[in-house]
């Protein structure tokens, strides 16, 4: 059951010229949030921009008493809302509705978990890493970005006992190229009997490539899709993803309700719709 809070900005940490982490005082949302769930966000109260925008719950942080005190967003500047979120100062108010959507289904031992992130697709994995850790699942993060300067929060993941496999477009850190490079190497080296579950979030072509790659090695991938969303609650049917289940015809399902996490094998990738920019 989602709640809507006027969350005060506790801190805004700029990580680069495009990325920032926004900490919000939203205990009621944070307390309910599962790994990979999202919130519908609107900076301030005006009608500009008109609609809320979806954002993954990045970190959930607790007060001294160990109660959920708030959550953070990993924000990448691409348009009007993300620009506004990048510029907010502590004390500003962000309307925050959530938690929403289907969370990841965390692996359980002896299963291992491989998280594959591209760019801002890192966002849903911090909460997943926390959940995996709680279950004692051995986790690896395959993480690709444009350059070394855009590989964020590596220590935080290390602290959670997550192994890191990095790649950058410019080769300034890790593999020189796409994150699928280290992933493919790892898949090759994997014993077919070894139970590994994959999770992917990032640009659509990347999630598609990961799904196919994993499939080729007989593995399933949970992908967290980023469709444009008008409401986040199932009201508008804007966020649909064409999904083919048990060989039937593709059906449009609402990613705010049935997703954003999907079994990559069921997604009809060509029907996702191309987002410009």
């Amino acid at each position: 059951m989602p709640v809507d809070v006027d969350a005060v900005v506790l801190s805004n940490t700029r990580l680069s010229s495009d990325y920032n982490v926004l900490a919000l005082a939203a205990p009621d949302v944070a307390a309910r949030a599962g790994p990979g769930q999202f919130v519908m966000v609107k900076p301030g109260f005006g009608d500009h921009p008109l609609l809320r925008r979806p954002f993954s719950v990045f970190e959930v942080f607790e007060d001294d008493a160990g109660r959920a005190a708030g959550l953070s967003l990993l924000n990448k500047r691409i348009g009007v809302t993300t620009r506004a979120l990048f510029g907010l100062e502590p004390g500003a108010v962000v309307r925050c509705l959530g938690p929403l959507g289907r969370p990841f289904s965390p692996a359980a031992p002896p299963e291992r978990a491989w998280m594959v992130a591209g760019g801002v697709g890192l966002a849903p994995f911090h909460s997943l890493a926390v959940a995996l850790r709680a279950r004692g699942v051995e986790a690896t993060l395959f993480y690709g970005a444009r350059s070394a300067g855009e590989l964020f929060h590596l220590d935080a993941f290390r602290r959670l006992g997550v192994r890191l496999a990095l790649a950058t477009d410019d080769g300034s850190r890790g593999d020189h190229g796409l994150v699928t490079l280290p992933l493919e190497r790892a898949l090759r080296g994997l014993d077919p009997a070894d139970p590994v579950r994959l999770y992917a979030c990032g640009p659509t072509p990347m999630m598609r490539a990961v799904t196919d790659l994993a499939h080729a090695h007989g593995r399933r991938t949970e992908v967290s899709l980023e469709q444009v969303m008008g409401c986040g609650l199932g009201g508008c049917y804007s966020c649909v993803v064409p999904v083919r289940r048990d060989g039937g015809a593709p059906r449009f399902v609402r990613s705010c309700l049935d997703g954003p996490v999907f079994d990559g094998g069921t997604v009809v990738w060509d029907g996702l719709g191309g987002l410009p920019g």
Partner: protein
Amino acid sequence: MSVDLSVDVGGGLRLANPFIAASGCFGYGVEYADVVDLATLGAVAVKGLFLDEREGHPPERIVETPSGMLNAIGLQGIGVRRFVAEKLPPLRWRGAVVIVNICGSTIDEYAEVARILDDAEGVAAIELNISCPNIRKGGMAFGCSLRGTHDVVAAVRGVTRLPLIPKLTPNVTDVAAFAAAARDAGADAVSLVNTFLAMAIDVETRRPRLSNVMGGLSGPAIRPIAVRMVHECRQAVPLPIIGMGGVMNADDALEFLIAGATAVQVGTANFVDPFIWGKLVAGLTGYLERHGMAGVTEVVGSLELPARDAGSPSVAS
């Protein structure tokens, strides 16, 4: 609270308050049951239903525009039979007043859908969607022709005694003429406006932003046009009006009520704030109390027009 918020929107349909969730902006209602007590809304207009299931258009289905949004959902839906079987029961036991928005590619389909709903339990009224800009056959095709409007309304009137509310398109020259045609064909009320046919282009790719190329414009941007159309219908046709278009708060809703709407639908604003319903009721109640009015009916059509000779400065007194 001392004021009476109830309204009578025609055909014997009485609502506890004038605020109705607009079709296509509230799913089938059940999606919002966690967020709002459906029984506290005046009514819920569910997403437009055809006889059969429809997949609708591929993404992108929406795009934001200045103070508005375009949508080209393409009326994805589960079809009227599954709606009756799967959605009506939970809506009923939650106490929702259900207005079913129906569509068709042919007059016969409209009539068939209406017949099925007439037999069903828990349908408060039928909203006849002859104004959807996002489908190739039916929809706006009927809504843009007086003859088409009359024929569809008459056909559906023939098969149901449920309150019948044709939903008018704003994409016409003279909306009041369509309200009159609807009335002559037996409508109990009209609702307006549906969305304005519009389009947005990504200048970098030089492609339409919507997969369907065109979509319907909704939101605050259209409110002044919608209010004008409600005013025109009120002046021309003695028929209850359900007004809508860009209502974001109680004051916006009051513009429609004052212009002559008996009830108001809220669509896009529900996306922005799904908790808007209580705020609308509180805002309207406060207004009526502040203005010493006993009920909503006092404010409906209360617009004060200037003396018509206020046209020239010499007599501008």
